[in-house]
């Protein structure tokens, strides 16, 4: 288990172009020894699920600041479930109202990181919760 590197897809669903957070996280995870794939902007739920499966990732980190998370996240989780990929750890970062966080955790987003989060905290969370084969 220790020998296989954690593979992470950092994805930007929705239309917003705020990718500072996504890029900083991508780099921090890479510096922590993970393999990181970054999708770029404007990814549809279908594209994200497809890339995650193609790239055989263990983790998906969704970054969004447009406010469309309640529409897009459930769709992504549903697509992953349909393709037997629910073992992928899905986490998210961005600006989320408190009640949305509760809701999103209920449907299977494992953790949500809001502004001000230390990247080391995210690294720790992934290591503790990832399902490696």
């Amino acid at each position: 288990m220790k020998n296989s590197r954690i593979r992470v897809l950092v994805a930007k669903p929705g239309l917003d172009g705020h990718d500072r957070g996504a890029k900083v996280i991508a780099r921090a995870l890479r510096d922590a020894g993970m393999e990181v794939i970054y999708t770029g902007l404007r990814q549809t739920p279908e594209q994200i699920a497809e890339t995650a499966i193609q790239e055989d990732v263990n983790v998906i980190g969704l970054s969004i600041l447009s406010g469309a998370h309640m529409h897009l996240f459930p769709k992504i989780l549903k697509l992953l479930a349909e393709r037997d990929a629910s073992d992928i750890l899905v986490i998210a970062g961005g600006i989320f109202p408190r009640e949305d966080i509760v809701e999103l955790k209920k449907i299977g987003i494992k953790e949500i990181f809001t502004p001000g989060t230390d990247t080391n905290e995210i690294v720790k969370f992934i290591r503790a919760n990832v399902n490696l084969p």
Partner: protein
Amino acid sequence: MTNQDKQIIEEAKKQWEENSLNPVLKKFPERKKVFVTGSNTEVNRLYDPLDLTDLNYLDDLNFPGEYPYTRGVQPTMYRGRLWTMRQYAGFGDAEESNKRYKYLLKNGQTGLSIAFDLPTQIGYDSDHPMAYGEVGKVGVAIDSLEDMEVLFAGIPLDQVSTSMTINAPAAILLAMYIAIAEKQGIPASQLNGTIQNDILKEYIARGTYIFPPLPSMRLITDIFDYCSKELPKWNTISISGYHIREAGATAIQEIAFTLANGIAYVAAAAKQGLDIDTFAPRLSFFFNAHNDLFEEVAKFRAARRIWAKIMKERFGAKDPRSTMLRFHTQTAGCTLTAQQPDNNIVRVAIQALAAVLGGTQSLHTNSRDEALSLPSQQSVRIALRTQQVIAYESGVAETVDPMAGSYYLESLTKIIEQEAMNYITKIDQLGGSPKAIEHGFIQREIQNSAYQYQKDIEEKRRIIVGVNQFQSEEEPMKDLLKVNPKIEKRQTERLNKLKKNRNELKVQENLKLLTKMANSEQNIMPAILDCVKSYATLGEICDQLRAVFGEYKESLKI
């Protein structure tokens, strides 16, 4: 300063160091080994007249309203007229946003600033699959002229100045604005306002591009040309450093990359045969006001000085207005914390003060709750009141450029100018800003700064109150704004109804003509104006242009 004066001060300084400073340092070492600005430029212990011996008042500063405009673009600055207080707003549909604008105008705001939702900014109608979940979220949804009519209902366009944050489809929204003015009986020549229209920083930092660089630059040049004849009071572009800074750039990088983009626009227009002095006076800028008070003030002053020199020396501008850098400022959204959000009121006040001391022409102050959601009405009011307190109570608006002559400020202004010029030279060597973007040079520089900033916070080299120090337990903030979830459906229904009721033949005819003009070398604005007047939708117009111009794909390097 005479040599003799200089010697006297040097001698006295030496004495001071030996007798006063060194004993104190021995007893009480300073808090840190190295002190830096918000952008990691080293800060000396003390600045004194010896730092300014090279400063030539008339060449480097001069009087306000005089080249190179370091002290401001008007002779009287805020003694004549205060800056325009302009809060960026818009959410939901046109009707809701119209209410917010009227509220802001009633509360003493002096200009409008329209936020569009992301589908509008990227050229999708509200019923497009890509628009799913995004309609009305970060701004107002505009699908056609009909929505614009509602958005500005009861707001006479000859009495407000309107800034529109719209880039890739800027020509279309401008055409809609001209069309509603016409309906209000106001000629285009009287319209006051700004379109952002700055595509280069979209590729660099903001992300709402549609078309590739070449046709995008052509659209921009067409707008310059059209407005120089039809809308002489309109600011045809707002060359923006704001988003570059938000993406993580330093103060120096912010102005360097922004001015490099400015150079690219001027060069593109000149290449099309436009005379510099017909369009350059209508170029405007948009900067960020971040936390470091002195560095920000110095940044604004340095930007004015650099731009004046570039326009005069490099492009041979003759009209003084072509060399004046006029700018809008917004306080730095990226400095707002989700923790202890009321602290943001104080941050915003300091940042806004920097903008005013830096001689901004207009200002948006962020609301305390924007790291949590779109701002509530109450938070927006505090943000606007912050500007009013600075304007009417602080006294800083009573004299022109009050910080000039400060040893520290003038030293910083000079350093920022030099460092920014180094970047501009480097970008010139790469073939100009579009090429530097294509190589990923600019994006990489920004990403490196962003990562460094994050690490500085995590390793506590940089303290953010309430985030990595002085944390406290807190109640969740109440009364956050929620966008009405029914907007998407309502907007889609309105769009369907419009498509049934308009003259379809006319629309198709105009869209065909648009394609023809897009393929030609003629100015595209009149064809766009015809399209919007016949109620062709934003999505339909952009689709025609996508078919001719193609779409931009970002090249990724992290």
